[in-house]
Each structure stands twice: as structure tokens, then as C-alpha cells.
């Protein structure tokens, strides 16, 4: 039995997992229209390679990765590209983003695709395959997987995240129960890239069937399934690494610096589909739950609008008032049902005032420090709150604001109902914007200084040229007073050469 080292704090919110986890997952029917945002991953937007009116096949590349931190996007089904333009996407701003709109033709015709033997490929080529296959971290952060595994040396430990600690969400649970052998084959691909000494899968103890299924699939592979206690947020990357290995990821740094690579089980499964079946990332498992008739998990094509997805789950019940994309702790509340699901969408919860009563209004902070007791990142949330509220951004940074994972445990326990995470998000985005402005103003300063320097130089050069001309003219004049005729001619020639455009001097 491996000793576990539990992180600081954590909370036990109501799980609400059974609503959606008891039913096997179903394949979502083809929607009327697919809306595919070009930004479905962390990093640079993908670049479209199709035009409006083009006919595409299922799995065909429609937008390619731009640079290292990006991932490709593929047509989730065969059909016609209607347009490429702005459409609202899942984002707290509610602003539109460039999307490719695809009209399915209902034929589901695949593009030619083949499996590859990953063991015959060098690591670099395998990474390119992942990028061009559009594989990103499906735990929520959508970090491009090829960038995560582009590491110089082999890691000590490969951690697979099957904790799924957030209430209501059961996608990984269902995936592990139904596709355990696929996940293990995907893990083999990640193992081949990272070369770890040990491979660990962490699963919370509230998923006994998933644990049993993976234990069976892992038999004889050397992959260890480790049961971790149910405690929110054990599925946080840094938190799970701490539980399983006892190592802490340093502040502001990535797991590979301590010899660990961490990936979600769903990402491993997506890698398996890509490499062993040739199918790029075109669909994912999504939990549809909350105030709907029959909560269930669905294998959903990317780009499906939320509204149609809810229809697959029997539609909403009365008293529904909005949607949460993701879980209730870290998810995003949206009201527009036309938003398309993307690679990072793991759950759609339909809200109702009985399931999610409106938060009571915030009271002043009484400095009880219960937030600090539950903070899994060992921060001082009450101090961060004061600094963020007073816009004392520098101080917030010295209190390690950027180590905050926005898990919401502090807001959950706050007796004053202060929306703490919102303050941290505000402070973080303010700091990022300030840094951007600073960069821009430094660039402007540099360019202005160079501009002044250039003008100065031009002035000086002009003055020098003029002085030279005058000097030459004077010399010519004195020489003209002498007797040596050939010398005079030579000097005259010289004057003409240097001062041709200047009519005054040439006249002399």
C-alpha cells in the first residue's frame, strides 16, 4: 500500500454523481449544425484551411495548428462548410469568436484514416501527430498534449488523473467503466513518450466500478491504480501529484520540473483513438445533468449547441434558469443555449432555483480564516481578498495570487458569502493586462528613442555634408588665386562633383 500525502484543506460538497453515472453513456445524435470555434485550446488560435462552400469528410482537417502552442481542429462529421465567422462561444465575456460553421450531410462519411504503430515512430514525430490530431488536455485546461510531453528528459512518474472530484460531473467515471482497455492503450502511448519509471492512476474512492474496471485492464502492465479519498479538489493537477507522489510542484512552475507528467484519463483515451485507430479529436464524453428529464453521459460531436444536447437528455424540467458549463465549483454560468460545446467542455448542468439557490448577498469579511484552512494551494485567501479589493495588485502577487487554482473552496466555506474567486480572477486579469500595457509602452519608448536618435543622426549628417561642401568651395577659391592651372581644374572638378545639386556653388 502506497502512503498517500493529502494536500492542505479541501472540502466535501454534495456529490450529486449518481444522477448521471448510473446510466451507460449514449451516442448523441447528429445535430442540425456544428459550430467549431478556432480557439478550443490554450495558446494560439488554429488557422482555417477550408473555405465556405467546401465539402468536408468526417475527420478531415479544417483548421491547422499555428505554432507550438496550438492544436488542429477537424470536421466532426461529413458535410458542407456554411461559413467562417464570429459566433458566441463559451467564455465569461459572452463575446463572439471566429468559428467554422458546418452543415452535416447525414452521411457520416469518414476520410481515409489508418492506425500507426507508435513504437516505430520517433518521439518528435509522435508529438507532431498529436498536434495534428488535435489532442489537448481534456481535464478542463485544454493544454495541448504535444506541448506537455515535449520534455527534454524522461520523467520519474507519469500521473493519470481519474479523480474527477467536482460534483455532478461523471464523464471520466463512465469513460473508465466503459473504455478501460482503450484508456490503458492510450496510457501506453503517453508512457512511450515520457519514459516514466512508474505510472500511477489516481481515482477517488467514490467510483468503485471505475476502479475495478481499470484494475482489471491494468493487470500485468505495471500501471498502478491508486484509490484516493474523496476530497475536493483532489483532481487538481498539483493536488493529485501531491497525494500520489508526496512531491509539491514549485510555485509558478510546471510538474515536469520535479520529474512528473500529469494527464487526464480522457486525454489518454483520445490519444488511443488517434494513434491506434487514426481518429482525430472530433468528439468527447459530456455529462448532461441537473434539472433535465434524464441525466446521462453522451459521446458528443464537438460543436454541438448546448440546446440540442439538452434535448438528447429529454429536455429541461420546469423551473430551469440557465446553464452551468463545467461543474458548480469551477464552471461558468451561461444563459445562451446556442453556445457550442468544445474540447474543454466536460459537463452541462441545467440550473434551477431549487438545485442551485441564489447566493445570499455578501457580508463583510470577519477574518475567520476558514478560507485559509481549506485552501488546497496553502494560500491566505483572506489577505488576497483584501489586496484584490483594494487593487493592491503588487501585494497580491507577493502573496502568490497566481498559485490560486480558482477551485472555489474558499468561497464555499466563507460564512460571509464573499465571492472570493471573482476577486482573484479580477486581480489576475488586471495584472495580466497591466503587464501587456507595460510591454507595449516599453516598445513605444524604445521606438521613440530610436526615432529621436535617427532624426538627430540625419541632422548631423546633413550638417556635416554642408560643412564639407563649404570647405571644398573655400579651398577652390584660394586655389584659384594661385598659378597652377591644372590644380585649379582638378579642384573645380571636385567641387562640381560634391556640390552638383547646389546651384550657388557650381556657379563659382
Amino acid at each position, binding site marked *: 500500500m502506497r502512503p498517500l500525502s493529502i494536500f492542505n484543506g479541501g472540502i466535501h460538497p454534495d456529490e450529486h454523481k449518481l444522477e448521471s453515472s448510473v446510466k451507460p453513456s449514449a451516442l448523441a445524435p447528429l445535430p442540425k449544425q456544428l459550430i467549431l470555434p478556432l*480557439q478550443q485550446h490554450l495558446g494560439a488560435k488554429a488557422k482555417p484551411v477550408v473555405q465556405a462552400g467546401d465539402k468536408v469528410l468526417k475527420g478531415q482537417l479544417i483548421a491547422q495548428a499555428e505554432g507550438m502552442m496550438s492544436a488542429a481542429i477537424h470536421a466532426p462529421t461529413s458535410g458542407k462548410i456554411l461559413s467562417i465567422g464570429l459566433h458566441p462561444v463559451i*467564455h*465569461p465575456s459572452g*463575446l463572439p469568436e471566429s468559428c467554422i460553421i458546418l452543415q452535416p450531410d447525414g452521411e457520416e462519411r469518414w476520410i481515409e484514416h489508418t492506425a500507426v504503430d507508435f513504437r516505430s515512430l520517433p518521439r518528435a514525430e509522435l508529438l507532431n501527430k498529436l498536434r495534428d490530431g488535435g489532442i489537448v488536455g481534456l481535464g478542463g485546461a485544454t493544454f495541448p498534449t504535444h506541448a506537455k510531453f515535449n520534455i527534454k528528459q524522461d520523467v520519474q512518474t507519469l500521473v493519470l488523473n481519474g479523480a474527477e472530484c467536482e460534483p455532478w460531473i461523471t464523464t471520466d467515471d463512465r469513460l473508465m467503466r466503459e473504455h478501460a482497455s482503450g484508456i490503458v492503450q492510450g496510457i501506453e502511448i503517453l508512457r512511450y513518450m515520457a519514459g516514466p519509471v512508474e505510472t500511477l492512476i489516481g481515482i477517488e474512492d467514490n467510483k468503485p466500478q471505475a476502479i475495478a474496471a481499470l484494475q482489471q485492464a491494468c493487470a500485468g502492465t505495471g500501471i498502478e491504480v491508486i484509490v484516493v479519498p474523496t476530497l475536493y479538489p483532489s483532481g487538481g493537477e498539483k493536488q493529485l501529484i501531491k497525494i500520489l507522489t508526496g512531491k509539491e510542484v514549485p510555485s509558478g512552475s510546471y510538474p515536469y520540473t520535479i520529474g512528473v507528467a500529469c494527464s487526464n484519463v480522457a486525454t489518454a483515451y483520445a490519444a488511443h483513438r488517434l494513434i491506434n485507430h487514426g481518429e482525430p479529436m472530433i468528439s468527447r464524453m459530456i455529462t448532461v445533468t441537473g434539472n433535465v428529464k434524464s441525466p446521462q453521459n453522451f459521446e458528443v460531436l464537438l460543436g454541438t449547441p448546448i440546446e440540442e444536447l439538452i434535448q438528447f437528455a429529454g429536455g429541461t424540467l420546469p423551473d430551469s434558469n440557465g446553464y452551468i458549463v463545467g461543474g458548480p465549483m469551477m464552471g461558468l454560468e451561461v444563459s445562451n443555449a446556442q453556445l457550442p460545446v468544445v474540447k474543454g467542455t466536460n459537463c452541462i448542468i441545467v440550473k434551477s432555483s431549487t438545485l442551485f439557490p441564489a447566493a445570499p448577498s455578501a457580508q463583510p469579511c470577519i477574518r475567520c480564516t476558514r478560507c485559509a484552512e481549506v485552501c488546497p494551494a496553502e494560500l491566505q485567501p483572506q489577505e488576497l481578498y483584501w489586496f484584490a479589493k483594494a487593487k493592491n495588485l503588487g501585494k497580491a502577487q507577493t502573496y502568490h495570487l497566481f498559485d490560486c487554482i480558482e477551485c472555489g473552496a474558499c468561497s464555499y466555506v466563507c460564512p460571509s458569502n464573499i*465571492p472570493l474567486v*471573482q476577486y482573484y480572477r479580477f486581480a489576475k486579469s488586471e495584472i495580466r493586462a497591466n503587464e501587456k500595457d507595460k510591454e507595449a*509602452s516599453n516598445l513605444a*519608448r524604445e521606438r521613440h528613442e530610436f526615432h529621436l536618435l535617427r532624426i538627430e543622426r540625419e541632422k548631423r549628417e546633413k550638417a556635416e555634408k554642408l560643412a564639407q561642401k563649404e570647405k571644398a568651395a573655400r579651398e577652390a577659391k584660394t586655389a584659384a588665386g594661385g598659378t597652377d592651372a591644372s590644380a585649379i581644374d582638378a579642384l573645380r572638378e571636385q567641387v562640381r562633383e560634391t556640390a552638383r545639386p547646389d546651384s550657388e556653388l557650381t556657379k563659382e
Partner: protein
Amino acid sequence: MLIALLVMSVLALLLGAVLGFSAIKFHVEGNPLVDKIDAILPQTQCGQCSFPGCKPYATAIAAGEAEINRCPPGGEEGIQKLAELLGRDFVPFGEDTAAQKPKSVAVIDENTCIGCTLCIQACPVDAISGAAKQMHTIIEIECTGCELCVPPCPVDCITMAPLPQTIQNWKWQSPVHILAVSK
């Protein structure tokens, strides 16, 4: 009595020597205050402060010749930062200061441009590309939105376009604002 005097004078000499040495050893070239003020200013180089650029304004503030409320692009936040740095009180914008505008970039109507190069000469950050009798265009990411290129244009083909809000430059609002709005 004599010993005490001796001790004190030796101490005084010693400390004096240390001070004298550090004055030479740790001497600071230039005026660091000007650079600190300049770092706060937004570097639009627009001249709305009545000085020919940000650095001259910073120099004037450091010399005590100018008020700290003369920079509209820096906003009230900029005044706050200057006040903090200089240990002065916050001063609101005066009546004579130009109104604050949203961050914009210049746009040249390329069909109307006659290629006179006057805007190129006016641009303080060399953000306009073009040559005599050739069409000019603004390098958008370099443009500080100073508007200095607008008046010299003989055919009025330069306009200022406010930067649109996108997902990339969108910011979270402070929850305080949200509460204030809902009330």
C-alpha cells in the same frame, strides 16, 4: 573626559570617512527619479501634456516644474501612481486638460492617401510605413494612438479607430462594480 573626547572624535572621523567613501563608490549617474516617472507614463508620446514627449514631461515633473495631472492617456490611475511615487497628494485632471479617450489606433484610408509622407514625419514611434508618392499604412501594433499624424494630413484621410473589445483583451470586472450596477 579626555578619553571621551578622543573616542567621539575618532568615531566622527571614521564615520565621515565611510560616508565619503560611499558617496564616491555608490554614486548614481543621471536622475533615477526621471526614469521612474517615465516608467509610469504610458509612452504614447502624444504631447497632450504640452511637453514634446513623455521623457521631457517626466523631467519637468522631477524638477517640480509640472503638475502630475497633465497626462490624459495615463488616466487617473496614472496620477495615482505618480502621487504615490512622489509622495504627493492626488490631483484631479484640470479643466484645461484634454478629455480622456478610449485607446485607439490611427487608420489611413488607403484610397484617399496621396503619399505625401507628412504623417510619417509626424509619427513619434515610426509606426507608419510608406514612401513619397506611395500609399502609406499604419503598423497597428506599433501605433500608440497619439493622434499626431491626424492634423498634418492634407487630404484628411487619417481617422482614429477605438480598439474593439475581444476575448483576447477582455478583463474580469471587480465584483464591487457588479454589486453597484445591480443596485
